[in-house]
């Protein structure tokens, strides 16, 4: 499965990559912000996206809105902080399938990914 990680923090991307590797996913592409992600989705054709909320150039929510204009079905997990929790509804309306609040443990991220994929498959 092809997964796109959109986060401006390389450390966070590495953590997510490590969790995904443990889950058996190896086809992973990275983007450092929404603009970078939009430039990569066409060629990479991800089957799951993990998107951080706060990023320079283009934030996660704006990216999701733009991405959903062309792709309605690929599952998106939003990575948020506690302060953004109140805006989760806005994100879901924009087309996010699930969310995970920082700080999260590798187990929690793994659980969110699995449940999102199960829901989409159902």
């Amino acid at each position: 499965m092809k997964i796109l990680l959109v986060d401006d923090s390389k450390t966070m991307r590495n953590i997510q990559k490590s969790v995904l590797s443990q889950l058996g996913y190896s086809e992973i592409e990275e983007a450092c912000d929404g603009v970078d992600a939009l430039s990569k989705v066409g060629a990479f054709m991800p089957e799951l996206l993990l998107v951080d909320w706060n990023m320079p150039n283009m934030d996660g929510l704006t990216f999701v809105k733009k991405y959903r204009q062309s792709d309605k079905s690929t599952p998106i997990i939003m990575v948020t902080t506690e302060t953004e929790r109140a805006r989760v509804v806005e994100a879901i309306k924009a087309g996010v399938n699930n969310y995970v609040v920082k700080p999260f443990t590798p187990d929690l991220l793994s659980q969110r990914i699995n449940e999102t994929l199960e829901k989409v498959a159902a």
Partner: protein
Amino acid sequence: MSDAHEQSPFIVNIREGGLECEVTVRAGMDLESTGEANCQGELRDLEIEITSDVNKRIAALILLHETDKEQEHRLVVAIGQEPQHGEDGRLELNTKLVGPIDSDIDESGCNSADAVLVHADDVDHYDRSAFILVEAGESLGTLHDPVSGVDGRSVKGETIAAKQGKALVLNMDESVVVKSCGAIEAAMSGVVVVEGKKIRVLQKLDVHGNVDFHTGNIDFPGDVVINKGVKDCFIVQASRDIVIRGLVEAASIYAGRDLELLGGGACREKGELSADRDIKARYLNECDLRAGRNLIVDKEIINAHVAVGADLMAPNCTIIGGSTYVTGACEIAEIGSERNIPTEITLGKEREAARLTTAADDLLQTIQGKLAKSQGEHDQLQHNAAKLTPTQAETMTELQFEIGTYSRLEGTLSSAVSGMDQAVGKIATVDLMVQKHMWRGVTIVLGDWEAFIEEPIKGPFRISMDSHGKPILTDLISDSSVELTAVARVRSRIVAEGADEAIAA
């Protein structure tokens, strides 16, 4: 009838082994209109085949004569067909083999150093090899089939037999295979020996002289016998046994099975002697040696660093200086010297395992330190979990990930170290038998104990562990045992390390 009428106007000469027939018309002859028929008749008398081509040539000759009767004229009127001889089958060797084969190769496949084709500027002289080594399945060359001949035909129509090519019968054994297409391949890895029609791959490399610049380094997939020694800085590797009849200098020797050093080793603390199974040596002087199983030494081990995976069997040998690790039992004539040379014998330990355990312990401590640091930082953030800034939330996520990673590493490393200890423990024995003397300056490490010999102990005696795990010495004449503390200064290494740490703290 005049003489002129009796003399034939034609001289017929069959030559080139019946392949040509030349007719000469004598000068001054008047052939009249029957010239051609007469010439044909003479040729028929000589059983020469008269073909249309022959007739044309006769006509041309007669015409030539008619134009100038006063001259003698000659022409080849019949030509036979030359036989095309066949070619014998032949052996075409690959380039790799051709150079040395043209030179003087002895039974071992070794050619003289001069015959090795190398360019002096771009070669490591230690890596020059005088042996043609091949891998199983490697192409050695091609066996070409003989080519058939085509028979010829004389001017009389007789067959001139062509020489037929003969097949080349190679003298070879099961070490070489010839495929149906003629490709010759090595059936096993080894050294190639070609002598005329004989081609073989030997799994035993017999080096007549020294391993030196004449031979280069040796890396052989089989047994190696070196009839003299191994010179400084050369490397000899074999997948099976190595026997060296002469002295091993500061060289490196690696045997996949047994290693026999009949001339001993004097390595000047350089190089390494290593075998996955047993090593037998006349003596070892300043060598670094690793025997996967047993080490058998005849005379002495001087200032050597020795690791023995099983037993050290040297009942007539003296060990002076250096360090010796023996995992299994150990029998020695004498340890140390009257001059109190520091000599360390470690019993019941495998050197490499001990080194790895130490390295793993160091790594474990580093990991535990990092784990504690990450845990501390995490706990601090955890107190304010509800009020974390986005940066703190990210930091906490990172810390949680680090804690998980370090915890996993700690668990894996701990179980690996304990598994290694258990594996070594299964084969480790503390059993040292000394036949003659153990001198002052000797340190014996027995499991968690260290014994410093401060007064000479006369043999024969045995040092082992009692049922409580304490070292004891048994006099092999009286068969009486005493605690090792009675004859040596003994201390627990665990207690000593604890004390060192306390002092450092």
